[in-house]
């Protein structure tokens, strides 16, 4: 694990920095074992399906800063993710009762001529035009495969523009081809924020940074009770607010897959302590997370009170759900840290987790602390997960696994996956709001959602009877991991 290096314009990719992998099949315990023994090995697939790239993950965070503009230095197709994030931004703003701000996103339209003559000069013109149109407090420039391969001098271009315009103009190096793990794009976004926006603390505040997507605002009540204030980042934050995240009392991760780099950077550079226990999912997980929060914020007694109170409050309904779900089986497919959270929630509610197809695996996070390993915590608290695979969102593997295991429930944490559960007639739902399952109440929220999902099955039965599948019968009879194992490309990582 290399220390955070703000001198470099780009962050090292996760494969190199954390030894993260995208291919594995075995049990959860085996994966935890080899992660801790540092004997984890990457495996790649000779057959693959389309994934997602780092530039979308970077844009997903940067596009939500209220007074920054984003320039996507790329052919126009790379801007295809603009509308989805713009609507997230607009609906999120409506939910928070904010005025109708527009997400201001621009594409530099790299053309064939640009690939021959270079597009850095054009990028400079784009940045100045964006400034004229929007007068933002900061401009981020996200890169693309095309700009990366033709070798545009992004750093020089943004530095010149920053000097001329008098606002931060920051490169976010996030070419899709650099990493097979799209969450590297989150690291790129945070690297550019820490490098370009965050200033040294002037004083300490009673704010707590919450690195999250655009989930529901559940932390006001908790932190208010403990005498602290919320500071949700990056979505719906401002440039000035981000400059001051170094002054906060602590940093909370809603999902360390998302915020690993940011949390570690704020702690290493500015001494803002990161809560290192895995996020609060499941009873014991929530106890542990709250106690660490109590230690860091120096509110131990208040936390102990809260634990007793909240556990007693949810106990009766939790017992009902456990009775109801006893003997039922579940499968899940999700990104790494949040997948580990879903395992805890399902086990807590009495499900038997038949298997998990998780997009990638980080053997350690940027804080380098094995205490943050949520999968290890799952195995310790709830036992092994027998069919644990790291699938990099490979749909064909998941369909094979689901048809094989026929669980009673599928929980998905990425678009397009619940659909396959439905095709197979398996009650399925997508976890859209990460905060939905957080803490003690989150267990009940999940229980309610699952109860409804298992109950509402007329339309699924109707659909699955008629649904078509492009997958060959040959494939459904194969070992789901028969394309996995080609290790010829590991060297490059």
């Amino acid at each position, binding site marked *: 694990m290399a220390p955070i290096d703000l001198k470099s314009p780009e962050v090292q990719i996760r494969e190199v920095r954390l030894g993260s992998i995208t291919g594995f099949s075995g049990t959860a315990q085996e994966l935890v074992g080899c992660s801790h023994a540092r004997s984890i090995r990457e495996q790649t697939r000779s057959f693959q399906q389309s994934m997602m790239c780092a530039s979308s993950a970077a844009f997903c965070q940067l596009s939500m800063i209220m007074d920054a503009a984003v320039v996507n230095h790329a052919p126009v197709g790379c801007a295809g993710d603009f509308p989805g994030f713009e609507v997230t931004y607009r609906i999120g703003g409506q939910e928070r009762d904010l005025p109708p701000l527009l997400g201001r996103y621009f594409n530099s339209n790299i053309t064939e001529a640009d690939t021959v003559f270079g597009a850095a000069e054009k990028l400079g013109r784009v940045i100045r035009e964006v400034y004229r149109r929007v007068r933002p407090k900061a401009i981020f420039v996200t890169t693309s495969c095309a700009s990366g391969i033709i070798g545009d001098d992004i750093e020089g271009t943004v530095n010149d523009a920053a000097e001329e315009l008098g606002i931060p103009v920051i490169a976010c190096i996030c070419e899709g081809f650099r990493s*097979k793990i799209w969450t590297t794009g989150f690291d790129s976004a945070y690297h550019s924020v820490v490098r370009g926006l965050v200033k040294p603390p002037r004083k300490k505040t009673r704010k707590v940074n919450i690195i999250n997507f655009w989930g529901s605002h559940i932390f006001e009540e908790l932190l208010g009770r403990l005498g602290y204030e919320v500071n949700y980042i990056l979505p719906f934050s401002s440039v000035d607010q981000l400059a001051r995240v170094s002054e906060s009392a602590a940093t909370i991760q809603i999902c360390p897959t998302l915020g690993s780099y940011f949390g570690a950077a704020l702690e290493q550079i500015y001494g803002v302590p990161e809560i290192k226990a895995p996020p609060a999912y499941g009873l014991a997980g929530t106890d542990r997370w709250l106690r660490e929060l109590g230690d860091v914020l120096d509110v131990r007694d208040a936390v102990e009170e809260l634990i007793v109170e909240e556990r007693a409050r949810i106990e009766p309904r939790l017992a009902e759900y456990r009775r109801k779900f006893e003997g039922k089986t579940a499968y899940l497919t999700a990104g790494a840290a949040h997948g580990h959270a879903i395992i805890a929630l399902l086990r807590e509610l009495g499900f038997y987790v038949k298997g998990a197809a998780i997009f990638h695996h980080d053997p350690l996070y940027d804080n380098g602390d094995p205490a943050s390993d949520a999968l290890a915590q799952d195995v310790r608290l709830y036992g092994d997960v027998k069919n644990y695979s790291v699938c990099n969102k490979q749909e064909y593997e998941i369909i094979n696994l689901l048809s094989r295991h026929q669980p009673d429930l599928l929980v998905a944490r990425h678009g397009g996956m619940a659909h396959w559960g439905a095709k197979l007639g398996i009650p399925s739902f997508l976890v859209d709001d990460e905060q939905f399952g957080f803490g003690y109440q989150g267990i009940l929220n999940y229980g309610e959602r699952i109860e409804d999902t298992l109950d509402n099955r007329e339309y699924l039965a109707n659909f699955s009877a008629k649904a078509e599948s*492009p997958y060959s019968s040959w494939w459904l009879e194969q070992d789901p991991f028969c394309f996995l194992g080609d290790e010829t490309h590991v060297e490059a990582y």
Partner: protein
Amino acid sequence: MSKRTEAASAQRARTKAPARTKAPAPARATQPAPAPARTEAPARTEAPARTEAPARTEAPAPARATQPAPAPARTEIQAVADRIYEHSLSIAPFTCHDENPEAIDSPLIEWSRYTCAIGAQQSVVAIPRAVPILHSGPGCSTKVDALIGQGRGYAGGGTIPCTNSGETEVIYGGEDRLRGVIEGSFKVIDADLYVVLTGCTSDIVGDNVASVVGDYQLAGHPIVYTETGGFKSNNYVSHELLVNNIIDQYVDLNKSSTGARRGLVNVFASVPYQDAFWNGNLEEYKRILEGIGLEVNILFGLDADGIEEWHRIPEAELNIVISAWCGLGIAEHLAERYGTPFLHFPYVPIGARDTSDFLRQVVDATGQSGKRRAKAEAFVQAEERKFYAHIDTLMDFLLEFRYGLPREFFTLLDASYALGFTRFLLNEVGIKPAQQFVLDDTPERFREEIRARFGEVSHLGLRKADVSFLTDAGIAHDLIRTDTKSCRLLIVGSSWERQLAADIGADLLIVSPPIVYRTILGATYAGYRGGIRVIEDLYSLVLNVFR
């Protein structure tokens, strides 16, 4: 109908439309920096769309909308957002109405609504039982899908095989990786046609995809390839390239016969998915062409007959291009290859007037005479009767509705739709054209002809429609925001125009991608049925602003 609408509007709220009519004409024409027109328009400063949004959006209205009047104090973040919003309102326009918008040299694209060349993956998805195989970086497919995708079709979305090219493929070449993915695709995905599409990584690095795919072609696999590196073109251009490559590399080897078959036509119209109504439109084209006695290769969508239908392309007696420009490259290619003549109908025919014109041109071009011709004309007459019976029903509403209807419209569409909508709204519905914006990066060589057609939109020759060809829709937005028209306005555009429409109190009909705020499955906006559907959608949303 008028009764129902009267009843609905009896409880009319203070609408946005009147707010606009009261707005003093901003002093935009005189334009010096100190008095930015935008801040003066009451529609923007006094009525932030926040308060209006729940009435208009289909998104769940926040529960607090029902809270009693005294607003709670703004939280810190809300106060910051308010200041940022005020700042955004204070920025002067960057365009000037006296300037020719096409002369503005914009280096960027804002509010983009088409994708890059690799967007042709959606054209492959639209062919029954065909599957695209991307030799590209890991995110290309998802980004195309995010902009123009609708569901997954047969093997689109997350099913699309991809090499997910990384550093290794960029440095050492990706041909081996591509072979692995092609072979896996043959085994895992049941398909009749496999189409390899390259991305920026492969096209810049220079992988020899022709040779890789060539080996499989020689072995008899139904596989073709197209170079679609994103920097090369957009998905209108690459759609043509894709179809031509399928014809050259696959159809020609499998063609059923070469002789022209009387009564068989190929239709090249919608770019699938880029035209959000492609499925419904193609269905309507097939229906009406069959209605005049033709047999139709529609090639894409739910009414297409799969790969067998592609085998029959060379047999057609006529190729029909229904599009301003995209598709001409296919017809020209087929004319060269098989000598097939083509008919170019240069816009989307919406409603009876243009659809009947279209069908009569097809009848002439297919040389029908006697009984066949009479039968075709009878079909046209019958469709017109139905269409105008509906217009008759509508007419009371158009003439008598007292609370205001949109009187002028802007389009922000591709050339085919912009021209089709301009003609339809003016000639069939009585909404007059304001400025039209064609945003599909129309190649230079087609522009003058299309511009001339905008000059001839009025069937009585009463007016010309002004049109600007732009790739950067930010310029169009800025011009519309600072426009001084006082009547109720209609914008025919995309979800990108949502806030713009709210801010100026215009109605917005979403037709072009990105489509975020509406659901489109089988609806058609083309032909006779399309005209009726447009009217239903348009006036439903016009009426939906009332309380």
